[in-house]
């Protein structure tokens, strides 16, 4: 019974992480090209690094979550599986949104790069 739970968990965890990583990679490319305008190679490198970090972090976290006691019956086994997958998904979601927020912050900064960073305190006569 335990082996079945572990196998199912392993398969779903790896499947989820790789599917999410591919989605992030595909959609992140466009987003990052806008964050780093005119620097496509840098954008691609950052994208790959982000996805690599994402996969490492999540497979590591999935491995840590794996440890479970012997489930008493089928229901307990499903519960154990659901609890771990739920925790894993919520972690993925939180990380994903933090990642998006950081990139959106960088992008907002870039948009304002050609403006003066602080409002003038006052106006005096022109030179």
């Amino acid at each position, binding site marked *: 019974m335990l082996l079945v739970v572990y196998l199912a968990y392993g398969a779903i965890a790896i499947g989820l992480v790789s599917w999410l990583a591919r989605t992030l990679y595909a959609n992140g490319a466009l987003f990052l090209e806008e964050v780093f305008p005119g620097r496509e190679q840098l954008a691609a490198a950052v994208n790959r690094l982000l996805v690599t970090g994402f996969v490492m972090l999540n497979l590591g976290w999935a491995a840590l979550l794996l440890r479970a006691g012997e489930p008493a019956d089928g229901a307990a086994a499903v519960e154990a599986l659901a609890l771990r997958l739920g925790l894993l998904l919520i972690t993925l979601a939180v990380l994903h949104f933090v990642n998006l927020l950081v990139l959106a912050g960088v992008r907002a900064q870039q948009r304002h790069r050609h*403006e003066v960073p602080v409002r*003038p305190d006052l106006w*005096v*006569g022109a030179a």
Partner: protein
Amino acid sequence: MSDARSPDVGGLTVFSDPASPFCTWWCGWLRAQPLLVPLRFLPVGGPEAQARLGVLGAGAELVAVADDGRAWTGAAAFVMCLWATARHRDLATTVRLPVARLGAEAFFHALTANRAILTRLIDSAPAPQPSRP
């Protein structure tokens, strides 16, 4: 009158206190930087400061004035000086974030409040060398 956020400052005139060794050091450091915006350095008590800044010029620590008349004082002037440099413009741009703005203000006030200590440190350190003679 141009927009408050417009980057077309022309040049920036930096009014600082020539009696303060720290201000002198800061202007020297700025002169040694590669600049994106031309800077002019004038004393706060000078005739141009009086003509352009009026009463403000007398007690100010640091004032930056754009050619179109926009003026920044204190920490904002400090940020504008950084913004004028090629190397530190990105750092100055982060000041749009409230956290960075507070950080810049705290840094500037720490500098001005500890001027005496900094002056002693600067006196014992070699002066920055300008990149162009």
